[in-house]
């Protein structure tokens, strides 16, 4: 998963505000889309609540792979809740994470943007691949890999654009370091792809009506 593991003060105040403003803009669009829906989808609200709880629970646990990584289930959030409700879910998860001491408050905006990218790309991949890959397990797995890869790219871009205070390295060195970090991070994408694929496949068998765009 992609998450900016930097403390408050790593970005200048201007960049903290810029990323917060971008995140709030996207959250505003999400809220507008959700509120302007003709009919409230109670099932999707309930699924969003479950996704928030599950993603928050697992996001705080460091898995002993490659020295410590964690899963955040954002692609699953995208697949199950869609691109309108998904950003609201990841905002809540990031706020709660900062509240318990995992991540800085100033980083919530930037991390929300990273996670929104994961949600949106996973959802888009999930929907676009439907005609050529009908199987739920491989499609959800591929969507997860695509979402997490995009999240890592957005994370690198945000850090490179913002710069990190108190660092003497040049942009190219930071870019090289973060690219390696992202490549290691993608190792956990394999675990997350399996987990997401199995959850989606199970829901597809047990309650296909809960899958966005897969209703019989």
């Amino acid at each position, binding site marked *: 998963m992609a998450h900016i593991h930097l403390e408050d003060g790593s970005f200048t105040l201007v960049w903290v505000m810029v990323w917060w403003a971008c995140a709030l803009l996207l959250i505003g669009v999400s809220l507008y889309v959700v509120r302007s829906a003709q009919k409230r989808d109670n099932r999707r609200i309930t699924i969003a609540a479950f996704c928030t709880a599950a993603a928050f629970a697992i996001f705080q646990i460091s898995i002993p792979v490659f020295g410590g990584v964690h899963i955040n289930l954002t692609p699953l959030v995208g697949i199950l809740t869609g691109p309108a409700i998904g950003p609201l879910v990841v905002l809540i998860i990031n706020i709660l994470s900062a509240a318990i001491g995992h991540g800085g408050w100033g980083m919530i905006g930037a991390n929300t943007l990273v996670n929104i990218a994961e949600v949106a790309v996973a959802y888009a991949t999930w929907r676009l691949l439907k005609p050529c890959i009908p199987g739920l397990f491989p499609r959800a797995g591929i969507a997860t890999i695509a979402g997490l890869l995009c999240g890592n790219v957005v994370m690198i871009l945000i850090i490179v654009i913002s710069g990190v205070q108190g660092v003497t390295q040049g942009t190219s060195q930071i870019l090289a370091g973060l690219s390696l970090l992202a490549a290691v991070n*993608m190792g956990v994408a394999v675990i997350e792809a399996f987990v997401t694929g199995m959850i989606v496949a199970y829901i597809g068998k047990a309650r296909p009506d809960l899958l966005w765009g897969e209703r019989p």
Partner: protein
Amino acid sequence: MTALPEKRGLLIFLGLLALVILISLAAYQMTGQMGIEERFSHAVGLDSGEKAGEEGGGWFGLSLEGNPIFYGIALGTLAVLCYAAYRHFSV
């Protein structure tokens, strides 16, 4: 006729996983054993961050980030809200 797209999807997925694992292992060999915070700090050129050794703590090597008490409170609240939504909306 539906078996072919199913198999094709699975093959693409497994091929993608193999590629990701190879790249990830190569990157891990280059960076070495580090905790997640330390790896991040090292990548951007900061000296701070947790030292290696996140592995092995907690249950079966799994460890919790953040305050465990606040984690329990937040998770408990979310669980109650999920139950309330599940009952209220009769999903």
